[in-house]
């Protein structure tokens, strides 16, 4: 299971984009859904890209938690859910790191978004695909401006996550 996940971590994003394209194309098995070149297709692709990272890193985070946490929660009468919550709470820094890494992968991703979204203006153009287009058109000012927006977004999300962690750590 972990091996599969770890393989998925290293999967090239364009290959995932291609697979989803083949699934969603008109003659593909899921062509009837009419999702190709829609923002929903991009969401599906990004979830598939981010999930293995989130799961693999979360699993590693939970495995690294002191085994006494689980035993302590159980012996104090906690049920399965509360015990899992207690373990997750103790692992929250590494779990947050998993979120940041997964988010980073989605934020910087261009290949799959381009293939399944089609880079349609006002419809499926993401920041990264817009930068790709602007650069190829020689519109470097726009490309740099969009790049800065992307960086600011990444920074903001990271700061927010750090703030949330800090607040929980009384």
């Amino acid at each position: 299971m972990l091996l599969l996940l770890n393989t998925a971590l290293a999967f090239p994003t364009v290959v995932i984009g291609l697979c989803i394209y083949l699934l969603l194309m008109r003659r593909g098995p899921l062509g009837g859904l009419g999702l190709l070149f829609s923002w929903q297709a991009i969401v599906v692709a990004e979830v598939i890209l981010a999930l293995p990272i989130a799961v693999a890193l979360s699993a590693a985070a939970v495995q690294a938690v002191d085994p006494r946490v689980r035993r302590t929660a159980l012996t104090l009468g906690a049920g399965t859910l509360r015990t899992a919550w207690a373990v997750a709470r103790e692992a929250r820094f590494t779990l947050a790191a998993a979120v940041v890494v997964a988010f980073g992968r989605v934020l910087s991703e261009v290949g799959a978004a381009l293939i399944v979204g089609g880079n349609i203006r006002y419809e499926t153009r993401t920041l990264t695909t817009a930068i790709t287009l602007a650069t190829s058109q020689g519109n470097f000012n726009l490309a740099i401006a969009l790049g800065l927006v992307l960086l600011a977004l990444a920074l903001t999300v990271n700061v927010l996550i750090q703030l949330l962690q800090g607040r929980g750590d009384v």
Partner: protein
Amino acid sequence: MATFEVAGLRHTYGGRAVLELDALTIETGARLALVGPNGAGKSTLLRLLAFLEPPSAGTIALEGRPVATHGARRAARRRVTLVEQRPYLFRGTVADNVAFGLRAAGVAGSAVDQRVRAALERLQLHALASRDARQLSEGEIQRVAVARALAVEPVALLLDEPASSADRAAQQAMFAALAEEQARRPLTVVFASHLLEDAYRWAGGLLALHQGRLSPVTPENLFRVDLPGGAGMQRVAVGPLLIDVVSGRAGPATLAIAPDEILLSAAPLQSSARNVFRGRIVRLAEHGAEIRVTVDAGIELVARITRRSFEEMGLAVGGEVYASFKSVAVRVF
């Protein structure tokens, strides 16, 4: 009623048997010490009694009901709490930690605060309620863990090496709180210790484990007494006997006489031993080259002698013998 009844218990780790107990009953309200060297199976037994893992074979009944299924173990864990050797405190404050079990039990918000406060006060920890649990000393962590365990009012509290923390005063406070809790309500306390001294000091009963089995070599000659007090030498009533001990203490105490400090003789000895009692041999137990002789002198005294002395003296069950020991050989706990 018995809190725990264990039958045919076997537990293995990686194919290796670590615990084999044919039968064991722990009565409600007991204060039992599990003694034995490291690796004797004490922690394993405590984890099984805490229902944190199922035994490889055999049954454990809690208050008369066998706990065999996953669901039964889960329900049983609400009634038995284990404090580990190095307790883990969750992130958050001391009060958060003590509230954990209460919240898990679905106790209402206002009642949680009240019970947290009461539990902390019992362990003299109220001043630490809002402190970060990560900033406590080892002794404080131990006491917070005990307060957290007592807050859920378990029928049995299991403690793994509670005296291993460096802080002696913290241990005193902890055991005093446990005694107080036992006086308040029926609570069974079982604690593991590799130090006999702690067992003598705090336990009402002793259970010796050796290599995963109940050891026949239990610490013997333990007597609960009330010391009359006085300077230096005291004469203490133990059953019908009066035993001379050297202690300046007064009040409840435990006397311990090591079996190898007791001399057996056919006639009263002319010696410096202040305690000489006549009795009758009621039991003999052989352990290799040594023999443990139980003498009924009004109370049962166990003496450890070599097989050679045993044969030369011609001792036998029913035979009359004198047991002598010095007053300084009587340890007072």
